[in-house]
């Protein structure tokens, strides 16, 4: 939609629409709901990472006073459509989703749900869990993706055959998928290069770390209608998954969104909801389930660990000749590691005549991963951006100029074969070149500056919203689009400008699945981008309907007016040929009550937009203490192409929050495993960054309009997490001369890397003396 007047709200720092309820403690999150007669559900989880379940005896638990229901895998209806698949970002097929929800014949990770209990109090439910007897036959543990790929590795799934472009394999394997994409001749590329660098990298399993544990209340009413209040990124996705898992038609299944206390990709799959519904159906009462923090760590979907090898070649002048990567990602217990995200992103900011990526999606005895902000991209960028820095150094080139020389732009090709539309890589790098941070020399011992880029393809899927005009002229946006990042505010701003009405005339309601039109989940940085197009259509429809009303009302016996005769701007309708004949918006809205022609409801839906590829870069200055290995961040600037900023406070907030998650991934966070058992399932031992670990996070936004969509908006949520670990690794290298290739770069790791370097230098000096 094009508006003739300049925007009044788009681009302005409008305070968050739902902020007041958040600062007064009245926002209702998943665990805040209480229903009359409500029971409390708890989950019995496997203590073994890999074990057959021979027998479950719940009779003693059921005999405990206050216990109202126990469910196991037996309570799920049988699988019908094994080909159905769900997800949004990381797909999972229905059979695997069933087995992930509750273990069938095998427990596949520590914390895998085995049974669930509903009781009149949380204490009784917990006591009942201890009374359920499970006979396990413990199996050898597949601890990581490299072990899982060995020919003699124990198999997690007897019927998992590798999907590849080649022949169907004859034997099952822990390798679920092999993706191979690329173009050009790499052998020629290496031959043409003056310098070729090859390096392997490793990242660990990390968690999204949202502060709100998963929580839901389910109630199966007397008619068999299911009501689920839950903290999810996508009510309709949850509804579809629950419908398939429980064989209930969609109209009998209402998913009601609770406020989401952080998600970052980790609240996409249903997890407690199916168990709560099964328990409620058995008990005939509402059932509430809330995870504790250890369950969140063990039994939700963290982010994939990865092993990545990158090879890059360039000519002396810095022109890349070829890029290659082998990516092995650990999906946890069921297939679906983010290999596609990693593949698209790993070389996305650059062009080269030859590129190839081989990627492996591998299962192990760990929790099944979910998306985590730009899934796959952060590990990929850690590998590629570190390697490119090594290459720039070998060539004696400035890391910024080297990246600019190879920056991809419109018409260049991603490794996947996608040809880019308008993208912002060069604009970002030019912004860095002009930025005071880049132009302020960094002085002092053990200090270094690191630069890295990040990318995200930008998800699309289907988005819908309705714009409803009330008879007093006020407007509400009715949508099923869950707000996880402040999208209620950006949607209000867009609609206010699209309808040319004051912002305070408009409200927004995120409704349940029975009351709103289908819309896909809020993930993949797709919400504001796709909703900008959906809302534009809804607003066009509203204005067309309002024009029809105005035409009718302004018609005279001697002259029937049509909507084409009516002009609209700034809350007023008038006759094109006679601008004196005016009706205000409010009056036209009021007509709909009595004329039998209302109500005015505009529905907007989009499914096919050209992707709005997103790029970012980060610059950080660190000081390394060689005595302790501690890395102190002195200065940090996040750069990003936002396409068009709808709300600068929110864009900055996404950039700062994402950057800090990247810093956590780079410096502190990891799952500490001991033969498939998690040693650090607390927020003390799993170390998320605190305010004390950080400086202010400066931001620099560039706006290169996206090629599609009415406003040029690009998603902004994913890209800021991507560059951090690589930018830190590059900074640490420049500070103390050690190249770290494993995350996280904890003080201990940095310390030992420095010791090794000293040792090597010492040995070299001794050898030199000897000669």
């Amino acid at each position, binding site marked *: 939609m094009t508006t003739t007047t300049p925007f009044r709200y788009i681009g302005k720092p409008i305070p968050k629409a739902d902020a007041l309820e958040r*600062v*007064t*403690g009245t926002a209702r*999150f998943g665990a805040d709901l209480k229903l009359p007669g409500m029971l409390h559900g708890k989950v019995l989880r496997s203590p073994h990472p890999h074990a057959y379940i021979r027998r479950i005896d719940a009779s003693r638990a059921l005999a405990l006073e206050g216990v109202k229901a126990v469910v196991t895998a037996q309570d799920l209806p049988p699988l019908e459509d094994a080909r159905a698949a769900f997800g949004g970002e990381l797909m999972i097929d229905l059979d695997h989703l069933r087995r992930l929800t509750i273990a069938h014949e095998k427990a596949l990770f520590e914390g895998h749900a085995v049974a669930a209990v509903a009781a009149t109090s949380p204490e009784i439910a917990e006591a009942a869990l201890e009374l359920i007897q499970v006979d396990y036959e413990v199996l050898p543990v597949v601890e990581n993706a490299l072990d899982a790929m060995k020919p003699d590795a124990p198999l997690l799934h007897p019927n998992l055959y590798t999907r590849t472009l080649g022949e169907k394999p004859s034997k099952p394997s822990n390798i679920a998928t092999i993706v191979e994409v690329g173009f050009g001749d790499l052998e020629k590329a290496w031959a043409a290069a003056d310098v070729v660098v090859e390096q392997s990298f490793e990242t660990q399993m990390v968690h999204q770390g949202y502060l709100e544990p998963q929580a839901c209340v389910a109630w199966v009413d007397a008619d068999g209608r299911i009501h689920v209040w839950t903290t999810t990124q996508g009510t309709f996705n949850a509804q579809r998954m629950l419908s398939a898992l429980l064989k209930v038609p969609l109209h009998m299944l209402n998913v009601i969104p609770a406020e989401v206390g952080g998600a970052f990709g980790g609240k996409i799959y249903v997890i407690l909801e199916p168990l709560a519904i099964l328990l409620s159906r058995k008990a005939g009462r509402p059932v509430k389930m809330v995870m504790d923090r250890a369950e969140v760590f063990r039994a939700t979907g963290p982010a994939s660990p990865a092993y990545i090898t990158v090879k890059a070649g360039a000519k002396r002048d810095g022109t890349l000749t070829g890029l290659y990567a082998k990516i092995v990602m650990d999906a946890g217990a069921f297939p679906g590691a983010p290999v596609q995200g990693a593949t698209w992103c790993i070389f996305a900011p650059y062009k080269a005549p030859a590129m190839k990526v081989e990627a492996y999606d591998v299962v192990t005895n760990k929790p099944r991963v979910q998306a985590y902000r730009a899934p796959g991209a952060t590990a990929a960028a850690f590998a590629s951006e570190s390697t490119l820095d090594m290459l720039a150094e070998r060539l004696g080139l400035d890391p910024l100029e080297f990246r600019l020389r190879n920056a991809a732009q419109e018409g260049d090709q991603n490794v996947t074969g996608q040809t880019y539309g308008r993208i912002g890589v060069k604009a970002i790098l030019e912004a860095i070149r002009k930025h005071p941070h880049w132009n302020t020399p960094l002085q002092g011992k053990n200090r270094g500056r690191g630069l890295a880029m990040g990318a995200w393809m930008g998800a699309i899927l289907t988005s819908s919203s309705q714009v409803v005009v009330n008879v007093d002229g006020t407007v509400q946006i009715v949508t099923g689009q869950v707000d996880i990042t402040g999208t209620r505010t950006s949607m209000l701003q867009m609609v206010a400008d699209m309808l040319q009405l004051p912002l305070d005339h408009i409200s927004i309601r995120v409704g349940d699945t029975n009351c709103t039109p289908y819309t896909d989940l809020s993930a993949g940085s797709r919400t504001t981008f796709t909703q900008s197009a959906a809302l534009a259509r809804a607003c066009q429809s509203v204005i067309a309907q309002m024009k029809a009303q105005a035409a009718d009302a302004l018609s005279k016996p001697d002259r029937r007016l049509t909507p084409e005769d009516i002009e609209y701007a700034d809350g007023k309708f008038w006759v094109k040929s006679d601008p004196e004949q005016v009706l205000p918006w409010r009056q036209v809205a009021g007509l709909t009550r009595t004329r039998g022609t209302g109500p005015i409801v505009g529905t907007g839906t989009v499914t096919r937009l050209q992707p709005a590829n997103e790029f970012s870069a980060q610059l950080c200055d660190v000081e390394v203490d060689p005595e302790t290995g501690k890395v102190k961040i002195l200065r940090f600037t996040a750069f990003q192409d936002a396409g068009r900023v709808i709300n600068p406070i929110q864009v900055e907030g996404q950039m700062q929050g994402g950057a800090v998650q990247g810093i956590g991934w780079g410096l502190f966070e990891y799952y500490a495993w001991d033969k498939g058992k998690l040693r650090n399932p607390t927020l003390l031992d799993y170390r998320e960054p605190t*305010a004390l670990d950080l400086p202010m996070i400066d931001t620099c936004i560039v706006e290169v309009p996206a090629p599609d969509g009415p406003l040029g908006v690009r998603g902004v949520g994913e890209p800021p997490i991507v560059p951090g670990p690589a930018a830190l690794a590059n900074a640490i290298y420049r500070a103390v001369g050690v190249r770290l290739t494993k995350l996280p770069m904890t003080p201990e790791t940095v310390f030992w890397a420095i010791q090794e370097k000293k040792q090597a230098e010492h040995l070299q000096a001794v050898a030199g003396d000897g000669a």
Partner: protein
Amino acid sequence: MTTFPLDKLSLRTQVRMKVNGEPHVLLVKPWQTLLEALREELGLTGTKEGCGNGNCGCCTILMNGKTVNSCLVLAPEADGAEILTVEGLAQNGRLDPLQKAFIQYGALQCGFCTPGFLLSAKYLLQENPNPTEHQVRLAIAGNLCRCTGYDKIVRAILAVARGEVQ
């Protein structure tokens, strides 16, 4: 038998507390935390449980004027105490300057950690009305936020300290 003493399930202890200025007499389970008592018995769900073991700060409240993680205090320990939760910050329909500043500076996203931050900040400004940036960071180091990267939270608190938000 289970490790939980089921025969003790019906035990209740009387606790008197003044919460956000209002006196209350509660019958709580002796093992119930102050957090649970506030949420379950008084319906004050603004105080959140993020971890249940004192690591995330989401359940921060003021007890007798000092910050505590209410998940680490047993409800009977709060007998006779004065409690301030996020629901009590606004006075006579007027937001606390910290609440205003958090809105104005965009110092919250999902909002789950916000109540805890507001109370840690409230305590800081009571004890030290003119904190440095480092002192602000130190005061909120026990509160995790996963959305904002802390930048705007620190700025909002400093703005209140400087009297820029009243």
